[in-house]
């Protein structure tokens, strides 16, 4: 990503302070590291998206005609692994979190800048291993790599892929560790817990999961690798092991991991909704604490992925019950966001459109999560496209929408340029339409009984699959657009003022783009979070006509 060099003489900022590849690859500036992450994550998103397009193309027809069965299996495996471990888990925390957490709490950097850089390098090492693994054959187990298939049957590169995830996992742990320490230790004077932006609360909760959950997947991968190479019997029933133990350990991490993916997005949505309705978030403390509640309860429900796997009936009952516990704080959030709109002063800029999209799609995704957590229904729909639709609604419709919203919202701060608002609104609309066209039919497919991970399917499922494939193409266009106009705006966009949205929050008190140390003076916080009333009382709200240039 090149340093924007506009026509006008620029102030010194974190982008132009140092030049040269070395100044980027050895930087300890959290903002530069965020940009390094942004580039790498975008790369993996397009790799994952490319696989998704191939999947959808194959499923256009009932027969398996585009690729071989084995290749298809690798496609969805690599799609899932790349999207989950190399895109969505690091996406918001490592890009926007990295960029914003120190600024939002008035710090000059994260507590451990060098560890922050290390965590990017770990991510890259993991990513390179993953790419190498994919280019030399790939893996065909599904992203869940269930035993004993993964340890004793497939002859693909499980160990290498596992190692890649292991390394990337440590990157994730270190990010979480850095955030928790930073949030505890680096807050500016006056930045009390009750004044923290909800984005920070969300990242705090996310970090808890990263810290406590990720090590368990790490050890699980070690066990899989050891069992596969040395033929020990930890998971293999032929050797006296229990394949369900693998599933327990895997989901102990991977269920909470889904909250690693959604919580940061929820944090973004809180910021956006507050800003574009010029209001303090309704029930601030409930929204804040519900993030923590989600993180904690998220650890109690993992076996809801195993209702038909052969666990005991009693365990199934317990885990189903607990799954509903985690839905309550999510509900609290949805209701509070909605209530925030009430008597607001609402504008429909692109970030807000994404936030609306998030609200709607997350609600649908979450509610269908309730279907899955319901024992009687799950037996029928587990391992069908109903599940696929559920998690894409949350991960793509929810988390990714939030991420895009956040990218638009903070783009002026990150790049110092305004993005073209008209194009951005158009992209938001295309994404929304394409998304629903892709994944809504999958709910029906699932209930009608189409199993997931099928590369050929009975004739009668075709119409719905065609709809879905058509949607995916629209969706792909929707995602390419922001990619293009963000790049465009770096050179041609209007220079951004320091606070284009007139938003609350310390990050907006820095120049756009910020200087290396973020703040000229260490800020002292004397106001509550989301003090939009004060802001709007002092300065007239930016009238509609002054919207950022429409491209």
């Amino acid at each position, binding site marked *: 990503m090149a340093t924007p060099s506009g026509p006008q003489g620029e102030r010194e900022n974190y982008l132009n302070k140092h030049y040269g590849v070395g100044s980027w690859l050895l930087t300890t500036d959290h903002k530069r590291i965020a940009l390094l992450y942004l580039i790498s994550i975008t790369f993996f998103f397009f790799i994952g998206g490319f696989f998704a397009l191939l999947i959808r193309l194959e499923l256009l027809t009932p027969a398996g005609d585009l690729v071989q069965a084995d290749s298809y299996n690798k496609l969805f495996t690599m799609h899932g692994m790349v999207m989950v471990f190399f895109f969505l888990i690091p996406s918001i925390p490592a890009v926007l979190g990295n960029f914003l957490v120190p600024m939002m709490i008035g710090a000059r950097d994260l507590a451990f800048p060098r560890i922050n850089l290390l965590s990017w390098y770990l991510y890259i090492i993991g990513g390179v291993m993953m790419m190498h693994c994919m280019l030399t054959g790939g893996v065909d187990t599904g992203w869940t790599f269930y035993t004993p298939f993964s340890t004793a049957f497939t002859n693909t590169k499980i160990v290498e892929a596992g190692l890649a995830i292991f390394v990337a996992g440590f990157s994730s742990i270190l990010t979480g560790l850095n955030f928790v320490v930073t949030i*505890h230790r680096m807050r500016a004077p006056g930045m009390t817990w009750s004044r923290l932006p909800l984005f920070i609360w969300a990242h705090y909760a996310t970090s808890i999961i990263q810290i*406590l959950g990720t090590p*368990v997947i790490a050890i699980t991968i070690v066990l899989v690798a050891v069992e596969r190479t040395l033929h020990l019997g930890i998971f293999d029933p032929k050797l006296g092991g229990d394949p*369900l*133990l693998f599933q*327990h350990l895997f989901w*102990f991490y991977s269920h909470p991991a889904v909250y690693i993916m959604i919580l940061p997005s929820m944090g973004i949505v809180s910021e956006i909704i507050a800003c574009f309705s010029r209001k303090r978030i309704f029930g601030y403390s409930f929204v804040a604490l519900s993030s923590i509640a989600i993180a904690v309860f998220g*650890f*109690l429900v*993992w*076996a809801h992925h195993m209702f038909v796997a052969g*666990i*005991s*009936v*009693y*365990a199934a009952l*317990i*885990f189903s019950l607990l799954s509903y516990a985690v839905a309550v704080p999510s509900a609290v959030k949805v209701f509070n966001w909605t209530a925030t709109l009430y008597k607001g002063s609402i504008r429909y800029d692109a970030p807000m459109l994404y936030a609306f999209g998030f609200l709607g799609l997350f609600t649908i995704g979450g509610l269908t999560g309730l279907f899955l957590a319901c024992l009687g229904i799950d037996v029928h729909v587990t391992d069908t496209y109903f599940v696929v639709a559920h998690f894409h609604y949350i991960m793509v419709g929810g988390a990714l929408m939030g991420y895009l919203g956040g990218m638009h919202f903070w783009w002026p701060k990150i790049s110092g340029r305004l993005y073209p608002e008209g194009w951005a609104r158009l992209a938001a609309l295309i994404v929304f339409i394409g998304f629903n066209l892709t994944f809504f039919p999958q709910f029906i497919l699932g209930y009608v009984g189409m199993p997931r991970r099928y590369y050929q399917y009975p004739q009668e499922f075709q119409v719905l699959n065609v709809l879905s494939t058509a949607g995916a193409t629209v969706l792909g266009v929707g995602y390419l657009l922001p990619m293009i106009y963000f790049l465009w705006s770096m050179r041609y966009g209007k220079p951004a003022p320091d606070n284009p949205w007139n938003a609350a929050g310390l990050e907006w008190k820095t120049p756009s783009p910020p200087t290396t140390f973020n703040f000229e003076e260490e800020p002292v916080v004397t106001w509550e979070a989301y003090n939009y009333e004060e802001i709007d009382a002092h300065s007239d709200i930016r009238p509609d006509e002054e919207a950022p240039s429409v491209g």
Partner: protein
Amino acid sequence: MSDHSKSSPLKMYFSVWAALLVGTIITYKAAFLELGRFNAAVALTIATVKALLVALFFMHIRGAHEKLLKLVVISTIFFLILLLALSMADYGTRLWS
């Protein structure tokens, strides 16, 4: 957590050390007694006491000037127990075995 006490803590260190060694000997000896299912209970209780001694005195959790570190320790143990206990909710109630 560094400057909790300026008076010499040497006596405390050595007594903890002695207690840990005694605990090890008891664990070892007790294992050879016939206590039925209490063998494991005894061994684990002693181990927990020893771990607590190390954490409280050698790792200075006791003198930590803030509750935060204690909170970290307690919540870690809590999540570890969650992992073990909820897995057992399955393994302990499978109809056979």
